[in-house]
């Protein structure tokens, strides 16, 4: 073998660092060429339709009515209409997330119940709901259940506090009177006092050892809140709905579309959350529970102080993705005409034809919503992990 003088530097075409730079440059150049081509095509196509790529059209008068949402009239701009859509998405997503979590928690715990019947019912719920498309469920609730309800004249009532008909649902709601804000402050004060009392009792218990449980904190809360209620002179009342000839008046009114969408999303997502809850509780190593038992924890205490905190930490990341899914699935409202982001944008596209800009706006908004939810959940995740590892 010829002992060639070992080159101090590899030739350029065999220099890994150089090749990496070259490869990336070529990749970026290729992307830029494709992007430029696509953009030119887009510009050409848009110009041929006598349109443009600016966002100026958002200031034009919308001219279409939106069935629900606050502070909007057809004479306002496309952008206002879009904002109403965003508000409606947030309205359904927020309530949906809360309700789906509650339902999922109940069903997840039911799946681990020691009662065979309860366990089986929860299992059937999960298996049926999870394997049926959510859009099918939303349309089913809307077409076959809500719209098939009796008309407003035959509205089904629940003790005069809630009415259900094909015009939607109306439920009794709190009515805030003059003293409302002051009462709100007193509630905050009550919570602060309750927290202080809780901390005080914990410290006392640490010193003198456990004692029979007394609801100290709850008592303090009720005491302060009641005082606030009396002092501000019955600040909140009940606003019961009344059935009129053409619709409800008073109470909290939910449109048929909102009700159907909410039902569909909550029941669908609830099934996935139930599985997360079950999986997380089962994923806590059995030794943890046994160790707690060995330390003399009661079954309730084992669950409260050992199993659930760990299960919660396991459940958070998948829970986050379910919340994101629910928010994204709310776009399916397009099929039943609930005016959320996609629905409103679809109308705007039909009227103003600027599909490119509208879709960029819609996707940007969803990314923002997703990021917000993820940021919130990540913050929660951080507190939980920090507290756990401390």
């Amino acid at each position: 073998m010829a002992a060639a003088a070992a080159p101090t530097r590899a030739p350029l075409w065999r220099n890994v660092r150089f090749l990496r730079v070259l490869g990336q440059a070529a990749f970026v150049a290729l992307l830029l060429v494709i992007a430029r081509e696509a953009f030119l095509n887009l510009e050409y196509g848009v110009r041929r339709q006598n349109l443009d790529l600016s966002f100026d059209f958002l200031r034009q008068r919308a001219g279409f009515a939106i069935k629900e949402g606050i502070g909007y009239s057809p004479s306002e701009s496309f952008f206002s209409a879009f904002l109403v859509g965003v508000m409606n998405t947030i309205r359904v997503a927020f309530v949906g997330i809360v309700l789906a979590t509650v339902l999922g928690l109940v069903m997840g715990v039911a799946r681990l119940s020691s009662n065979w019947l309860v366990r089986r019912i929860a299992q059937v719920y999960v298996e049926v709901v999870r394997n049926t498309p959510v859009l099918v469920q939303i349309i089913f609730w809307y077409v076959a259940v809500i719209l098939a309800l009796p008309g407003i004249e035959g509205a089904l009532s629940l003790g005069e506090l809630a009415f259900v008909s094909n015009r939607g649902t109306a439920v009794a709601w709190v009515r805030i009177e003059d003293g409302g804000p002051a009462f709100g402050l007193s509630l905050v004060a009550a919570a602060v006092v309750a927290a202080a009392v809780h901390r005080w009792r914990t410290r006392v218990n640490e010193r003198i050892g456990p004692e029979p449980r007394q609801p100290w904190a709850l008592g303090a809360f009720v005491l302060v809140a009641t005082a606030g209620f009396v002092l501000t002179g019955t600040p909140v009342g009940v606003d019961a709905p009344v059935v009129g000839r053409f619709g409800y008046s008073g109470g909290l009114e939910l449109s048929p579309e909102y009700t159907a969408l909410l039902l569909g999303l909550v029941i669908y997502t609830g099934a996935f959350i139930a599985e997360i809850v079950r999986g997380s509780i089962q994923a806590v190593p059995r030794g943890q529970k046994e160790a707690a038992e060995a330390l003399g924890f009661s079954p309730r205490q084992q669950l409260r102080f050992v199993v659930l905190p760990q299960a919660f930490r396991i459940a958070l990341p998948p829970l986050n993705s379910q919340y994101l899914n629910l928010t994204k699935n709310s776009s399916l409202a397009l099929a039943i005409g609930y005016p959320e982001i996609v629905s409103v944008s679809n109308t705007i596209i039909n009227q103003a034809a600027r599909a490119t800009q509208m879709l960029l706006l819609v996707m940007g908004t969803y990314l923002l919503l997703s990021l917000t939810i993820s940021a919130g959940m990540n913050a929660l995740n951080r507190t939980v992990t920090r507290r756990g590892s401390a």
Partner: protein
Amino acid sequence: MSGALPEDLERSIVGVAEEPAVQVAPTRPPLTLGEWVHRNLFSSWFNGVLTVVTGILLAYLGFRLVQFVFVTADWSVLRANLRSYMVGRFPNDEIWRVWTVAFFLVVLVGISRGMLVPPPPTRRGLLLRALMGAAALGATLALVESFVVWLLVAVASALYAAAVVGGRLAGRRLARPILVAWLASFPLIIALLSFGDVGADRWGGLLLNLIAAIAVIALSFPLGLLLALGRRSSLPAVSWFCVGIIEVIRGVPLLTLLIFGRFVLILLLPPGLTFAQLVRAIFMFTLFSSAYVAEIVRGGLQGVPEGQYEAARALGLSTTRTMVLVALPQALRNTIPPMIGHFISVFKDTSLLAALSFSDLLFTARRASQAFEFVGDQAEALLPGAFLFWIVAFSMSRWSQRVEGRLGVGQR
């Protein structure tokens, strides 16, 4: 539950959590009926009350359900539309194509299933299956008026049973041919269904959902694999690009992507180059799906121990060969459960085609519910559609559990 946590998390990220592996408990003497009832239904007074209350509720709901199905419901809307539910407006003269595909798939599924059957099914499982088969047969007899269709269904059922038995007898020997047959079946099916004058515009009903799902799955798997490898690339330009694409796609609803495909995609292409609406929808759907496939594959790759890479390097394998020969085979095996979960999601999501007015199963069912002569039968029109979606998705998820158990995923 060995190593259940990371997989559970991965699965939940895709949105489908599967049942964890069954725990093997030490054998106990079987309980008598009385003991069983006491232990499972009335172990405490609270449980007793719970049992009674839920029992009454369940009995009432069950009664109403039976009453609805057999007494109050008017299934004439289904009888009139059954054909549209299955195949949409597929021309009558060409329907043999669909039947051919159906027979082909029945045999393929049957053999695969037979091969994967773990130790003999329990008596209860057999009973359940017999009951379900009888119910399906009864429903077919009650709903279908055509004798020819009865005959074809009977032949298909017989073929299926024969294939399952054949698969069980053949065992693992058929593994490779079956895999090849599955891979070949996708282009074959598409060709058979689009050859001649039955183009994509005539597909409808469940047929359209299935074709769309198969196309999206077949196309998004390689694309997702590429994205996942790109994301792990050591070249920042490539990995940032892939991360960007994956995260943007996962952050927006599928529906907005499909609307993008409908209105904007065509403008990005060179003028004069056009594609059918359905092709564009499937293209966007594929993009969407591959972002999720990429995340699943990435999860699988992260599950491959570092030692495997080091061992491959010690053997002198190049980066590419390490990936292809060492990392990917192990990673892909671990991704089977979440991957099938994702494929089920894809099938369910094909119902979104209805929101874009493609005449898929959901669209057909909804249109049937709006027909003038069937006013008041909305539930009868929609429920069978929902049931068809459910039965396909549910069978797939059961099947994935079987495969999972068979491959011993998460146990090695």
